[in-house]
C-alpha cells in the first residue's frame, strides 16, 4: 500500500488532486481511499489531503502518519510547513518550485531522499492562465511515481473537468516532460 499526503493552499485543488488519483486507481482495478483533512478549510491557508492506493482491499481508517509520497502544490509551503513530517526515509517528495536542487533540499529541512521538482506555477499560468497547480502537479506525480496509469488519470480529468479537460491535460503533459528527478 502506498500512502500519499498532499500539501496545498485552500483553493488550489489539493483535495481534487487526491480524488483524481483515487478515481484513476479505482478505475484501473486497484483499491484506493482519498480524503481531505477533516475540518473547516479556508481559502489561501495551508491544507492537506490524503490518498491510499493498494492492490488489495484497504482495511484501515487511520489517518496517514508515515507517508510514502509527499506532493507539494504551492512553492511557498516548504518554508512555512514541515512538509516532510513523518515521511519514510525511502519516501519521495514531489514539489512545485523554480529553485535549484540544493536550495530546495535546504528548504526541505535537509531532505536527502528522493526528490522530484517541476515549476508547476509557470506551466499552469502558461497553459491555464491561472496559478492553480493541482492538475499540473499530477503530471509530476505520474512521472515520479508511476502509481497510476496515465490513460486512467486523463480519463478522470475528462470526467471531472469536461470542456476544460484539454487544457488541464496539456498542463499535465508538460509537467510529465519537465519534471526533474533527483
Amino acid at each position: 500500500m502506498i500512502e500519499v499526503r498532499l500539501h496545498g493552499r485552500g483553493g488550489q485543488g489539493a483535495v481534487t488532486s487526491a480524488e483524481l488519483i483515487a478515481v484513476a486507481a479505482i478505475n484501473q482495478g486497484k483499491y484506493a481511499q482519498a480524503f481531505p483533512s477533516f475540518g473547516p478549510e479556508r481559502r489561501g491557508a495551508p491544507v492537506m489531503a490524503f490518498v491510499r492506493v493498494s492492490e488489495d482491499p484497504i482495511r484501515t481508517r487511520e489517518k496517514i502518519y508515515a507517508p510514502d509520497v509527499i506532493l507539494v502544490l504551492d512553492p511557498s509551503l516548504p518554508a512555512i510547513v514541515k512538509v516532510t513530517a513523518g515521511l519514510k526515509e525511502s519516501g519521495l517528495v514531489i514539489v512545485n518550485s523554480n529553485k535549484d536542487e540544493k536550495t530546495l533540499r535546504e528548504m526541505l529541512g535537509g531532505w536527502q531522499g528522493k526528490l522530484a521538482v517541476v515549476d508547476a506555477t509557470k506551466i499552469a499560468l502558461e497553459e491555464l492562465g491561472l496559478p492553480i497547480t493541482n492538475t499540473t502537479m499530477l503530471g509530476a506525480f505520474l512521472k515520479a511515481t508511476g502509481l497510476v496509469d496515465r490513460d486512467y488519470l486523463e480519463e478522470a480529468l475528462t470526467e471531472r473537468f469536461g470542456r476544460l479537460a484539454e487544457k488541464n491535460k496539456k498542463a499535465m503533459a508538460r509537467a510529465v516532460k519537465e519534471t526533474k528527478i533527483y
Partner: protein
Amino acid sequence: MGKRIAKEVSIAIAEAVKQCKVDVIAAYPITPQTHIVEHLSELVASGELDAEYVTVESEHSAMSACLGSVATGARTFTSTSAQGLALMHEILFIAPALRLPVVMVVANRALSAPISIWNDHSDIMAERDIGWIQTFAENGQEAVDLVYHAFRVAEDRRVMFPFIVNIDGFNLSHMIEPIELPDQELVDQYLPPFKPKYKLDPRKPISMGPVGIPEIYIEAKKAQDEAFKNAYKVVVKAWDEFERIFGRRYNPVETYRMEDAEVALLIMGSLAETAMTAVDKMREAGKKVGLVRIRLWRPFPLKDFVKAVKGVKMLAVIDRALSIGATGGPVAVEARSALYQVPGRPRVVNFIAGLGGRDVTVEDFEEMADKAYFYMKKKPKEPYEMIGVKE
C-alpha cells in the same frame, strides 16, 4: 451487476436514495451530513429525481415535515448530525409510536460542548431509546447497501418503524472509495412501492396521534414494544433477500477471526476496519484475539451477540461515546446486561476511544487488547477507562 466506481460515500448514499425513488426529502444542512442532502437537492433540481425537496428552517421542522409526509404514504428520507439530531429529539419519539417509517442517515458527530464537528457516537447514543431501528455501517459499500435495506424493512407492513442508518462523520461521509451501485432494475426488485395500510387521506379521514389516557397508554407502549421486537425477523429476512439479489451478505452481528479467541474486541462503525488490521497483526504474533462488530444496534440482537462471544474469556468493548456518571459506555452497559444471565459468560472491560474525532490507530487497538489480557489476571479498578488521553 453495477459498476465499481470511485465515489465519495455521501454522494453514493444520495444516489442510493435516488434509486429508492423517494417522494419527499426534508432536511436541514449540518456538517458532516451536508454533502448527502446537497447532492439530493441537486438531483431534485435537475429533474433526475422526481421528488419534493422541502427546505426547512431547523431539524425540528425537518423531522416534523418528514412525519407529515410519510403519514400520507409518501416514501420519505432525511439526514442529519449531532446538534441537528438533538434538535429533532422531541419528534423522534413520535415517529415509531405512530408507526411512521421515515428513513434517516445520521452522519455521526460529537455533541457540543466543546464545539466539535468531528466523529464519535455521542449524538446517536443520546437517541438510543427513541424506538427507531438502527444499523451501523463499516464502509462506503455497506452505507449504501444499508440504505436499500432500511427502506425495505421500515416500510414492510409487519414492521412500520422508522429506521436510522449510522455512518461515521468524515471517516465515512467524506471518504472517496470504491463503491458498487447496483442496477436500478435490481433495486426495484428488492424494494416494492410503499403501500401503508393506513394513511392520511382527505377522502378517508383518520386520526393519527390522539391522546393516550392512562387507561390505554401502557397498552399502546406494550404493543409498540412487541412489534419492535418482531421487527428483528424482518431485518434478517431482508438481508437474506439482499444477498439473493445483490450477492452481498450482512448479519446483525459479525465476527472476525473469532475461532479459539481468548480476547475479543467489540466495536461498532467504521473503526472496525482498523480493528481488523490490528487483529491480523496480533494473530501473526500468536495472540488469540478476535473481533465482534455489531451492525444491528436496535433492536439489540441478543441471541446473535451471545453466540458471537461464546467461549471468549475477556470481551473488550470499545465505546465511541461517554455516558457520564454511568457504569460504562452505552455499548458496554448493553453488553454487560446482555451477558449477565449467561452461564460461563466472558468478563467485560470497557474502553472509551475516539471521542470528538481523535484518531484510533492500529496501535491503540493493540494496546486495548493487551490491557484486556492484563485485566484477566488483575481486576480493573474502574468499570471503564478512556484511551489516548494526554496527561
